[in-house]
Each structure stands twice: as C-alpha cells, then as structure tokens.
C-alpha cells in the first residue's frame, strides 16, 4: 500500500486533466471567439502541467511558448482583423446534449479498450518497465564507448539531432515550407514607411520601460536555453520559440515601425536561410572532413563509428559540447527565431494596405 503523500503527483495529474476537459467543453460551445481563445489558453496551461508531471521538461519548454503564447496571439490578431462572433443560426439547440452523449459513448469505448489492453498484456498501463529501444537510447546517450554514443547527457536532444537526425531535418523543412506558404500569400504586401514616434504610438510609458528592461533578459534566457541544449532541458526549438516573444513584445508594446529597426523582413529571411544552410552544413561536416582526408563517413555522423573513424570532438577544454549537437542547436535557434519573426512582422501589416493591394490585383 502506498503512503498517501506519494499519491500527490498522480492526484494533480488527474485534477488538471479533468479541469482541462471543462475548459475544452466551454471553448468549443462558446459563441464569442475571444472567450474561446482564452478558454483554450486555460486548457494549454493545464496541459503544460500534465507534460511537466509526466517528466518531459523539453516538451514543456516548447509547449508553453507555442500554446500559451504564440498561438493565442496569432488567433487574437486574426479575430481583430475579421469578426468576433460566430454565427450559430443553423446549429440545433441540443448541441450540448449531442456533445455529452458523444463523450459518454466514446469514453466507454476508451475505457473498454484500456481494460482490454490490461487483459491481453497482463500488465497495467503505466508499466514499470521500459521498451528495449528506450533502454538502448538511455544506456548509450553518454557512454564510455564513443562508437555507439552521442556523448550528450540529454537523451532527448541526442535522439533529435543524432540518432534520428534525418527525421528532424525533414520536419524542419516542413516548417520551412509552411512559412514559405505564408510568405507567398503575403507576397505583395509591404510594411508602410513611417517614422516611429514615442509619444503617439504604442502603449503606456510603464509598459515601454518595463519591456526595455525585460527584452534583453528574455534574449539571455532564450540563448542560454538554446546553447545548453545538450546539457539541460532545451535546445534550438525551445530557445527559438522563447526568443520569438521579444519580436511580438516589440510589435505589440512599441509598434511595427519600432520593431523593423531591428528586424527587417528581408534581413530576417536572410538570417533564416543562413540558419538552414548551417543545419545542412552541420549534417555533412564530418563527411566533408572525411572526404578531404580520404576516409569514409556517414551523413549526420557525430562521433566516430566502426568503419568511419572521423568524429567531432565531444569536449573542448573540459566542457562537454557533444560534437555536432551544439552546432545544430545554434543554427536551429536562428532558423526558428527568424521564422517566427517574419510571421509576426507579416501579421502586423495594417489591413488598409492589404485591402488596397488586393483591390489593385482584382482590377
């Protein structure tokens, strides 16, 4: 029998899941879209707590900026540019009863499947044992034998950029394509040329002063998350989305015309391309070294392998840098940060400018 106080994390897990269900239900049946966004933000904070208690801090670090910060911001901008209320004229009044009956039915199915899985495997669902693959990854992530190891104490970053590096490369290119799609939709729009004036534009003086103090601190936190990605929870993705908050704060608190002093769209695209080229180069850097010295190598090779003896140094001056993982984190930080900077700058273009452009295209 467990002691009662050992149940606390599991209890918090169950309570936050139930609270998130209430928030999701209200977010779906709410007619006011702004309130729906806020309810989904409540759901996101509870999901962050669930991820935290499932002991995956890497996911929490990337999930909080994305789902609590960036996604509500973008949907709020979209609602401000379009309409606020949903038209529910045709939907039957009994929709909440429909949802409840659906939920009850499918929940019974889920519970039945869970019990079935217990009965088949003769084991309870959160098993005490890990899979063989997981044990292999955990065993070799920082090991005395460099042939099979990534030489990084963080297993998640090791999997993302070493063991399964090619997957991550193609997933990064999917993200690149999505941003290219957004750029193509906004191809003729330009930020109007206006001077930033302190007293007319932006929010109150208190907000501006506090943001001036806080933005460098946020950048420092983001860069430290990115550069320590091979030692502590974090990495390029997490640092990039954390740094993207600075762009959104500059745009919302000061103005677009203040933000483009630091981030012009073309500069951001150039830096983003530099980051992507850096990722590609880091993927083949061992191959380049090997071919120039007449040896063999793999793509996405980090440490020396059996038939490919070239590898990057895993520590410099006693500090662990884990070979290519460090380079990947730096370049991924640049690519993600600048990608979201581009999207925010595009979203902040005034609607009149865009409408004039579209009217010109139609005629």
């Amino acid at each position, binding site marked *: *029998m467990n002691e009662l106080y050992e*149940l606390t994390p*599991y209890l918090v*897990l*169950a309570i936050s899941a139930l609270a998130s*269900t209430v928030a*999701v*239900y209200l*977010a*779906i049946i709410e007619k006011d879209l702004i309130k729906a966004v806020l309810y989904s933000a409540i*759901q996101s904070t509870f999901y962050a707590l*669930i*991820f935290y208690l*499932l*002991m*995956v801090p*890497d*996911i929490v670090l*990337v999930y909080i900026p994305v789902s609590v910060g960036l*996604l509500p911001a*973008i*949907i709020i901008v979209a609602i401000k540019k*379009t309409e606020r209320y*949903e038209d529910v004229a*045709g*939907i039957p009044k009994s929709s909440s009863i*429909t*949802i409840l009956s*659906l939920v009850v039915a*499918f929940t019974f199915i*889920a*519970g039945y499947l*869970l019990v079935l899985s217990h009965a088949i495997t003769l084991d*309870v669902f*959160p*098993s*005490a044992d*890990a899979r063989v693959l997981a044990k292999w*990854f*955990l*065993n070799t992530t*920082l*090991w005395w034998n460099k042939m099979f190891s990534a030489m990084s104490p*963080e297993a*998640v970053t*090791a*999997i*993302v950029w070493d063991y399964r590096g090619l997957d991550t490369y193609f*997933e990064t290119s*999917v*993200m690149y394509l*999505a*941003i290219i799609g957004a750029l193509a*939709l*906004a191809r003729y729009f330009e930020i109007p040329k206006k001077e930033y004036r302190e007293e007319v534009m932006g929010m109150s003086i208190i907000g501006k002063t506090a943001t001036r103090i806080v933005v460098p601190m946020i950048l420092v936190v983001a860069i430290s998350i990115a550069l320590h990605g091979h030692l502590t*929870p974090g990495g390029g993705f997490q640092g990039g*989305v954390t740094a993207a908050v600075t762009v959104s704060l500059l745009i919302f608190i000061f103005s677009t015309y203040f933000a483009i002093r630091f981030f012009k769209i073309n500069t951001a695209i150039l830096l983003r391309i530099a980051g992507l080229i850096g990722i590609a180069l880091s993927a083949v850097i061992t191959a380049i070294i090997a071919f120039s010295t007449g040896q063999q190598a793999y793509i996405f090779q980090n440490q020396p392998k059996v038939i490919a003896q070239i590898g990057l140094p895993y520590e410099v001056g006693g500090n662990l840098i884990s070979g290519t993982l460090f380079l990947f984190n730096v370049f991924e930080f640049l690519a*993600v940060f600048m990608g979201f900077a581009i999207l925010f700058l*595009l979203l902040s273009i005034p609607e009149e400018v865009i409408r004039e452009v*579209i009217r010109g295209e139609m005629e």
Partner: protein
Amino acid sequence: MIDAKTYLFMVTYIAIFANIVISLYGIFVRPNIIKKIIALSIFGDCTLIYAILIGFRKIEPYPTIPIMTAQQPSQEYIKEFVSTAVDPLPPALVLTGVVIGLAVMLFLVFLALQVYRVFGTLDIRKIVRMRG
C-alpha cells in the same frame, strides 16, 4: 493489481480522450473557420499527450527525467538512470511535432485571413454557397 496510482492515471487517460471527442465535434460541426482552427489545435495537443503517456513508467516513488545530471557517469549511475528514467523517444517526436503544428496553424490562419478578404465572411456555409 490496480492500485490508486493506476486508477488516477486512468482518470487522466479518459479525461483526455473526452477532450479528443469534444474537439472533433468542434472541427466537424462548428461553422466558423477560426473556431475550427482552435478545435484543431486542441485536437493536436491531445494526440501529443497520448504520445507522451505511452512513454511514462510507474516507478516507486516517481520516475525521473531522461537527462543525466552527471558529466562523467559511472557504471552504477548509468544503471540506475536506465532503471528510473522515462522513455526519451516520444518527447523527441513530440518536440518537432509541436513546432511544426504551430507553423501549419500559422499557415491556416493566413489562409483564413485571405478567405475573409476575398469572400467577406468566415462562415463555411456561406462560402460554400458563394461558389460559382
């Protein structure tokens, strides 16, 4: 066989399944495009949580994160680490999934804005009627 911890864990599992059902209702029935995007993001989050739930382990008193705190670990440390850490493979898959999901959502929002500029409404029923 089923103790209090497993029971509470099953409550979590079933509550998140309820979230999936509700968000699917939102995607299919609600007419507004922005509401559909919100429901889609909730649905994505729920599936990600399922991926993480698979990798969880029930260890006394509690499992640890898949990150070593020692820079030069000994054999005993590695053995203990492997026996207590959660599965690191689902986080690695979910990590890229979250960021790509955000980029795709952004693209959808840009599409919705373009639809509003051209058609003047976000109601999917009116847009379908306007065709032709």
